[in-house]
């Protein structure tokens, strides 16, 4: 394809591209929004069943229309109505099957999905043997044919998506509560049964309007992938819903444009794979749960814990060294520490200790003198004092209030000392009410008292 053609497509100069783009983006947004509710309700795959169950509805609608007046079978509106009826009755039957109690939800959904689809295949093969009925118009519903969307189709999709979005917007609070805690919603006296029915209806509606563009096999992707991707960016449900809508229409747009540039690619599959790409990017870079972000914050907290451990080790070594003489009130610059002393204080490998020390040096809490010995700076001394104090406060708390054996408190305090907030430290002080605590010195280690 010529570059000028690609340029034409990408700048939306074709009326047709604009129409198709509009229709699929609206569907993408609706799919993301409704899918966000289904994700929280942990029923993401319901729409998969809804879409497969639509096939016999489509086939029957065609056959009935043909039987009534031959040649009118491919009226898109009636086929969509048939699809909606098929989906709804599929979900209804799945509910019935679950009432046998021996067949659980997953099996019930699988049965409905495959049986309805199988019946649909039977009907399609019947349609195919009719003289009027190359099943071409119907297989489009299976695989989708976004490029063939007409302005009339897009108007239908547009009206439906405005209604869907309005319903989601007006009943946002109610639907959210249903998804988070349906028992609570029922206890408040809300009609949860009707709300659930409404949500299912919305799913069916989205599934049906998506069928002409992405096809019934892949419709479910537009309800599952964008909300799951959006989950990596936020913890707020309202924001999640909006992001899911945006990502949904973004993936639709990308898919349509790519398949317009390369016509051999089926639009439905490209839309889904565009969504998958967005999902993978979100999973890597997302600000709330993204892998990269998690890794960075874990590394940061690992670093911080290393620093606090180092400072406490310094303090404890110095405390031992100088307990008989002047105490620790003097200038920390006069109190050198060797690498070996520090390494003996905790179970650090030499490499780990060296890296922690270099971080501490660059932070300015420790200086390395010309004699290769380390000295705390006054700022370092302050931090070390605080770290030791937190540790010992928590140890005291464990011994006095949690009945922990003194020999075990060190390990447990080790885990929590890094996350003690200043307010918590104050509370601990009040609780322990020890005179020693009120001084700026750390309390004596309970282990020292024992020995």
């Amino acid at each position, binding site marked *: 394809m010529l570059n000028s053609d690609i340029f034409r497509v990408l700048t939306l100069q074709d009326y047709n591209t604009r129409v198709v783009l509009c229709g699929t983006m609206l569907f993408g947004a609706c799919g993301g929004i409704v899918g966000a509710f289904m*994700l929280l309700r*942990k*029923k*993401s*795959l319901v729409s998969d069943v809804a879409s*497969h169950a639509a096939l016999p509805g489509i086939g029957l609608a065609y056959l009935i229309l*043909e*039987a009534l007046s031959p040649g009118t079978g491919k009226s898109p509106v009636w086929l969509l109505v048939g699809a909606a009826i098929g989906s709804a009755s599929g979900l209804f039957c799945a509910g019935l*099957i679950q009432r*046998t109690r*021996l*067949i*659980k939800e*997953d*099996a019930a*959904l*699988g*049965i409905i*999905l*495959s*049986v309805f*689809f*199988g*019946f*649909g*295949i*039977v*009907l*399609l*093969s*019947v349609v195919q*043997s*009719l*003289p009027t009925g190359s099943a071409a118009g119907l*297989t489009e519903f*299976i*695989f989708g044919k976004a490029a063939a969307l007409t302005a009339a189709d897009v108007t239908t999709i547009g009206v439906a998506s405005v209604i869907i979005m309005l319903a989601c917007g007006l009943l946002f609070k109610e639907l959210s509560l249903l998804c988070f805690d349906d028992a609570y919603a029922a206890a408040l006296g809300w009609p949860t049964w009707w709300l659930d029915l409404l949500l299912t209806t919305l799913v069916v509606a989205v599934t049906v309007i998506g069928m002409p563009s992405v096809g019934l*096999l*892949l419709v*479910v*992707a537009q309800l*599952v*992938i964008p*909300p*799951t991707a959006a*989950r990596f960016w936020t913890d707020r449900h309202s924001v999640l819903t909006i992001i899911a809508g945006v990502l949904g229409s973004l993936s639709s747009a990308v898919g349509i444009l790519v398949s317009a540039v390369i016509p*051999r*690619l*089926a639009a*439905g*599959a*490209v839309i*889904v*794979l565009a969504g*998958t790409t967005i*999902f993978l990017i979100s*999973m890597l870079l997302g600000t709330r*749960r993204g*892998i990269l972000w*998690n890794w960075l914050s874990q590394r940061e907290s690992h670093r911080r814990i290393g620093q606090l451990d180092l400072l406490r080790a310094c303090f404890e070594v110095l405390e031992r060294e100088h307990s008989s003489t002047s105490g620790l009130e003097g200038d920390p610059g006069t109190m050198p520490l060797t690498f070996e002393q520090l390494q003996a204080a905790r179970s650090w490998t030499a490499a780990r200790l060296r890296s922690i020390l270099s971080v501490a040096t660059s932070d300015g809490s420790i200086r390395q003198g010309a004699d290769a010995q380390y000295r705390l700076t006054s700022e370092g001394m302050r931090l070390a004092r605080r770290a030791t104090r937190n540790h010992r406060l928590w140890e005291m708390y464990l011994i006095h209030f949690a009945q922990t054996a003194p020999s075990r408190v060190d390990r447990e305090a080790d885990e929590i000392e890094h996350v003690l907030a200043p307010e918590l430290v104050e509370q601990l002080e009040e609780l322990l009410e020890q005179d020693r605590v009120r001084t700026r010195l750390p309390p004596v280690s309970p282990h020292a008292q024992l020995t």
Partner: protein
Amino acid sequence: MFTEFFKRLSVWEGIDTWIAVTGALAAMACALPGTWLLLRRQSLLGDALSHAVLPGIVLAYLGVSWMEEIGWLAAPATGSGAARVAEGMSLVARRQLALFAGAALSGVFAAVLSEVIQRWGRVERSAALGVVFTSMFALGLLLIRLFADRAHLDPGCVLYGNLEATAFNRLGDTTIPQAVIVNGGMLLVNALLTLLFFKELRLSTFDPDLAAAQGMRPSLISVALMSVTAATVVAAFESVGAILVIAMLIIPAATARLLSDRLSTILFLGIVVAAVGSVLGHVMAITLPAMICSRLGMPQVEDASTAGMMTVAACGCFLLAVFLSPRHGMARAWYERWRLKLRIVREDLLGGLFRREEAASSQPHAANRQATVGDPVRLSWFQRLGRQSLIRQGLIDSGSHGDSLTESGTAAAQDLVRSHRLWESYMARHFALPDARLHDTAEKVEHFLGPELQAEIAAELDQPTMDPHGKVIPTPPERL
């Protein structure tokens, strides 16, 4: 109608037998792993797996046709008899091996990917599965569209197979279709694995913790089950396609589950249902659509997709089981409920009649001694049914003045009223209930007190003769 059915069925030929056998073998092979998946509540995983293996299969098809092109895999040579069959066999084996490898690779890839998404991204399980299997399915469809001319894969066949065509794809110059060998082999392998690892599978399915404590490795068993499922799906793929194979995995197992509570019986019944459903499916495919459509003015319709009809037939078996299963069927539940309701209505009628006769006998006027069951018109249809059965069994006499209890009727009624009044006495002794409330509970409990409970209550209350309302507690004649 039946003559038409048999007329349409009479076109059955050898090839139809092979189609039915192929479908039955595929379904039976799927039924075994499907049962385990169902019992482990992992049916959704089978669903996801059957979608996710698509790109692997497409790539394997491409690889095979590429290898045939460059001559690594020769097309069957001319020859005769056993030599050609053997060559055909080895060709099938090699091709199937490539497909298994491709499918297994993409199945494992999908499993690992969804695990990674679930763990690293902290995404809920079904959503993670949904993301992975729709993406891989889309990728597979895209590959088919791109290389359709080279892989000889029709997107339609991928979804619902082409059972009719696979039956023509024969082994050498025999009439045995290749798919029979492939699916029959898979069935044998699955049956063998189930027999060999029955204990491990059973324990890890019902109590994975105990299995782990006994030194089995539930996670390993789970992975093995997944791999076998993937292989079975691939074997059945050519015949029934990616979506209908889900029906083969789930429906026979679900049907068998409704019919029995014993594991070995469920496994066996699953295979039987699979076979019956498949054969029935082909019979239906070549008869029903034509019969229905010719009446609707569409005589052109000859038959319909066998694979699709097989799922419909299997679903028919499932529905039959839902209604008629001897232990869990709806019909039995309805029947039991109906019988209980009828018994309660009959007993209530007897009790009411007894009380009226009792009240009448305490009246001085002999003219009123004849009690009636009440105006029959005012009874509900169900009560009328109960009254009819009481008359038929000779518990009630319907005279011209109204109904009266016969001797055996009186005995039955006394038994019931005894239960009622004993329960009232018991409640009055042990619970601080107002007298007016005693009646309601006794009205319910009276139907369920057997002679043993009656005797126990009577013994505990020191053989009372009066109930709290001051009425006599009757004693049936045979217990005097």
